[in-house]
């Protein structure tokens, strides 16, 4: 981490960048927040640890409008989002100085708490174990067990866009990425409906999934329009929460990089990434393997047309 701070200070001092976008230490052992730093003094509170899961790419939409360059720290998976945002002309590459930071998987405090650990006083790491002191005794949990779901199906530790790299990464992929989707595909229509009904009935329409999503970068979301016969903040009927999530999944299909932020931030723990992964799996099967955000140039299968394109759906079947 000291190396990141040192490099940030240098780039601020020589005027290469006007500000730094990183993470600031929190007031609990697990709650750092995304933050801007403009001088060495402010950088004293900079932190980069297992709890810096927040993907800073989307903040670069606003940072691209500011004077001068912004140094942004991106983890390998965050760079896919940045590429995709570049492809959509939502961020300005010239306004960014990207330091790719090493990643050995990011932690999920909800996973820690789910294991029954409460009253957390401190968290330290020893040999792949998190040692957690609590008001109710000492606990330990393996680093892997405390990781975010997305890190178990990590798309690789290679940064897809950067100006320089600092820090080492460790492979964390230990599960089949589409396993969750395959499981749901195997369900009967009734079981599928019951599954999604149960999960989505928890939705409180906080819009955290949408607002954190780098693919949701419309200046004004249709759900925020008061001309739309719907409300972004309440479900007018029992179908609406499903409609919101299904529409959102359709809208980001082919553009979603599987960064997993939607599932990380959902206060109700809804596995929203499963919707997106269903689209990814279908796209892979219909058009060949494709990964949004691998680069900033390639046209996506849903925004390109070739005569060889698959013709899925009932329209094609009808002929």
């Amino acid at each position, binding site marked *: 981490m000291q190396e990141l701070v040192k490099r940030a200070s240098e780039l601020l001092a020589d005027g290469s960048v006007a500000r730094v976008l990183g993470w600031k230490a929190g007031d609990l052992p697990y709650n750092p927040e995304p933050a801007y730093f403009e001088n060495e003094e402010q950088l004293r509170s900079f932190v980069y640890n297992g709890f810096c899961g*927040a993907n800073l790419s989307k903040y670069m939409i606003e940072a691209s409008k500011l004077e001068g360059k912004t140094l942004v720290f991106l983890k390998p998976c965050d760079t896919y989002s940045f590429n995709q945002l570049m492809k959509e002309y939502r961020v300005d590459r010239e306004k960014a100085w990207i330091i790719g930071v090493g990643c050995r998987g990011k932690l999920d405090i909800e996973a820690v708490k789910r294991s029954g650990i409460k009253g957390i006083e401190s968290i330290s790491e020893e040999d792949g174990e998190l040692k957690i002191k609590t008001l109710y005794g000492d606990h330990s949990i393996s680093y892997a067990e405390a990781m975010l779901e997305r890190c178990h199906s990590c798309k690789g530790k290679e940064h897809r866009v950067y100006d320089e790299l600092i820090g080492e990464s460790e492979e964390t992929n230990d599960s089949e990425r589409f396993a969750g989707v395959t499981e749901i595909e195997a369900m009967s229509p009734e079981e599928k409906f019951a599954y999604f009904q149960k999960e989505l009935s928890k939705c409180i329409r906080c819009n955290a999934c949408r607002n954190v999503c780098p693919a949701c970068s419309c200046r004004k979301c249709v759900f925020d329009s008061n001309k739309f016969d719907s409300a972004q*903040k309440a479900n007018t009927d029992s179908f609406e929460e499903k409609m919101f999530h299904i529409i959102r999944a359709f809208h980001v299909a082919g553009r979603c990089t599987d960064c997993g932020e939607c599932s990380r931030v959902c206060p109700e723990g809804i596995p929203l990434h499963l919707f997106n992964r269903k689209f990814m799996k279908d796209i892979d099967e219909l058009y060949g393997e494709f990964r949004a955000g691998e680069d900033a140039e390639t046209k996506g299968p849903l925004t390109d047309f070739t005569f060889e394109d698959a013709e899925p759906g009932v329209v094609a079947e009808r002929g």
Partner: protein
Amino acid sequence: MYKIKTENLTALFQKIAGHQELYLPVRNAGQVNYANWSDEAEVDLNVLNTVKSPKDAFFPQSENLYTCKRDGKKITIEPEQLKSQNFVIFGMRSCDLKGVEVLDKVFLEDPLDTFYAARRDHGTIVAMACNEPEETCFCKAFGIDAAEPNADVATWMAGAELYWEPLTEKGEALTEMVRELLDDGSEEAVEEMKTNIRRIIAKLPYSDLSMDGWNGEVLDEKFNSELWDELYKPCLACGTCTFVCPTCQCYDIKDYDTGNGVQRYRCWDSCMYSDFTMMAHGNNRTNQMQRFRQRFMHKLVYFPANNDGMYSCVGCGRCVAKCPSSLNIVKVVKAFQNQGGEQ
């Protein structure tokens, strides 16, 4: 003081539910929220904070006010019926009880909110002391005692027993209804628990949070502070903090086109949303800094200014636990404190 063995709690819930609707913390798809009791419900009384606060029981996230129906040239208007059946809400914590007190200030003052008032009249609250407070709790900063949940009935979970003490007429009536399931309990066991809870509360990282400098008199000073420009920046403008909050009370009224009429409903609003307080002339808050500032000014300045110094934050810690960007009211209060220290 009464008590009941925890193994008999299901019988207790069955008994209550046989007479009245019963809401309590239920685990559904991995998360605990207040829900209607049923034989299949997976009741979870160990979880300290439900994801959403229990305020839905009195002020639901979305409720119909009236329905207009069109039949040819005839239009009928059907007002929504007020709550007329008694119900019990079981397991509320001291912070959430205080949250209801905050809502009372808003909805039971003139003009009376009849929908809310009917639910308050018909609801009996059984509250629970917090055996195992967590690091996100800061009720103590608002003078709330997690060991003394003063509701219609107060309860304390002590090992294999739940101690039960009716404190109001409604509480006595409920106790009478379930009396056959209760044994006599000793005060000593409960006193020991209270001491223990208060001992833990004193050790919590946020328990020394000072609210000095926040009151109804500091409007200009706080409103004009340059700190807001820094504090709001990581805010995603989602509504998580407001929708999990036990005291957030702002609502919107909307019309839903049913095809042959209109359903007028109200739903929680969030000051974090761009159309919050939208009026014909536009919106008086035009950026996220202003919307972010509104939330904390409302809780810590405007509300106390209008309600004899009462804050509209109760320190439940839900926003601390749930903000996607790890922002929260504690960080805001501390940021102002630190600024004071540096001057």
